[in-house]
């Protein structure tokens, strides 16, 4: 075996190591180790409201807060609950999968609505004068209606004075 043959073999091995390390290093530097799905947030942790500018934005954040509150109570992710509330069929599948009764779901959804009212009040999006009776109201509503409130928070908030009776006509003064 000649020295030239040996050195060519050595160079080939060293070259292979270098090329492999450069490739893997470049991919890692470009974010290869973190290119994965984003982890979903724990629903029990507070999710701060951004500064809402319209009824639509308030409704969006109200929905998210309500889902967080309900999911936290049920011990599931906000995302799984949101998909479950999209259709009655999904809801049934969800209840079976997690062994959740209608009553437990209703309690959780009401708790979610209460959290949403709390968050809205804390963010200054809802006046305490409206928030207090609203909180009372959502704690008593039936499950179907509670789910509708979460899914269509904009209409709910738009018509909130209709539910509150005594607070009628005050809403526009307190919603931005």
């Amino acid at each position, binding site marked *: 075996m000649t020295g030239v043959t040996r050195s*060519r073999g050595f160079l080939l*091995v060293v070259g292979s190591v270098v090329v492999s390390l450069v490739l893997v290093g470049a991919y890692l530097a470009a974010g290869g180790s973190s290119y994965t799905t984003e982890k979903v947030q724990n629903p029990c942790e507070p999710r701060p409201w951004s500064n809402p500018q319209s009824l639509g934005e308030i409704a969006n954040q109200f929905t998210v807060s309500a889902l967080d509150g309900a999911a936290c109570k049920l011990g599931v992710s906000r*995302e799984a609950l949101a998909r479950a509330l999209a259709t009655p069929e999904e809801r049934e599948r969800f209840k079976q999968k997690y062994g959740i009764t209608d009553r437990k779901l209703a309690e959780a959804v009401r708790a979610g609505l209460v959290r949403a009212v709390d968050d809205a009040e804390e963010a200054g999006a809802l006046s305490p004068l409206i928030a207090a009776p609203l909180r009372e109201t959502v704690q008593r509503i039936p499950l179907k209606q509670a789910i509708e409130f979460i899914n269509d928070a904009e209409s709910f908030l738009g018509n909130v004075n209709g539910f509150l009776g005594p607070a009628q006509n005050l809403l526009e003064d307190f919603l931005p």
Partner: protein
Amino acid sequence: MAALALAVGVVLADSSIVVLALPDIYRELNTSVSGVTWVLVSFNLVMALAAVPAALIARRVGPGRATAVGLAVFAGAGLACGLADSLSTLILARCIQALGGAAAVTASLELLPATVGSERRAATVWAAAGATGAALGPAVGGILTELVSWQSIFLLQVPVALVAAVPILAVAKHEQATGIISTELRRTGRPHIWANLALAMVSAAIAAALFLLVLLLIEGWRLSPIEAALVVTAMPLAALLGGKLAEYVAEARPRAAAGAILVSGGLAGLAFLPKATIALTLPPQVLVGIGLALVLSALTETALGGRAPQAIHGGWTISARHAGVVIGLLLLTPIFTHEIDQQRHDAINAGTAVILDSPVNPLLKLDLAEKVSQRLEEEKGKVPTIGPAFEPLPEDPGERSEVQQLQGELQDQLDRGATHAFSTSFILAALLGLIALLPIALSKEVEL
């Protein structure tokens, strides 16, 4: 020589040619992911078990006759594969195909020295034909699946195998007429343990590279079989370059070591893709392609070097290579199927979070969530295409732009999940390639 190389190429391509057709077979024969994996596993398992016995029989009946009969059995079973209407029939036909293939490939190694002039040259041609066939297999299979059907892969093998068999029949007739077989009945020496062990490990890594990459492209990134075939063509093209590179280094051990390192480096690159982009799969594929050309030829030469009879030792290398493929598939299939399920779940959650946190109108959001849920239900067990869930787009330009941005973000989460689902398997495959360095270091070269 061309007929013998064609025979070796077509048989060894068969161990990987169906890779791109697996999703179609999976859907058409209504089976499971692990069930369809057996279309690959069965062929490789029977090849691994039958290669050495087939070589022994070939030495008894004559290599010409064994090659011709092997190719005929391979062609007949290929026809049965193409006509199979159930998974069990297909798997049975694949097993018979492997029996014929094992006889043809090992016996052809006994015929090659007479046509190419030396045993060393014969080993090189034989190994190169096998490596080319294995590397080209997925691309050819993908193109046929898309343009014609998965059945056409097997049906096309029939005329190819018969064309290769015709010139070999002359050798078989000569053997029959004279009663002389072309090899002397020398005592069979022990197989080269370390070289064959390294071959098994490297083959497991290479099989994983091909199988996982194809699944990532088709099932993860939703490419069509022909698009995936074009993408994985990078590997055989790079293998040609690797073959040229091998000519400059005479020593087998450094070639084998460099090849194993490059295969592992390429696989590690695929494990850490920073984005779901085809272009980023090309550099790792080039490394795997060059690596496989270097390592397979070097280890095959080492395993055959100075050993007689060639057919038996060739049988051992075939056995090692296909056993490696089986080990790779059986080891990694449960891991990546579990990872795909997990990543699909994570991607769906991340996608739902994107929808919930988007500024899109809540009613539209609800509608989208419902449609996305329907897509998930329709494409159960797979990474879904979410495009149809966003159609028709809203007419309001502002809302349309928000929805399009949302669609992009959701698709990004699905791409991330699909890509990451294969990372663990690619890393394990890379480790198999690196572990092969140990037997390579222990393998002693034999001067030919």
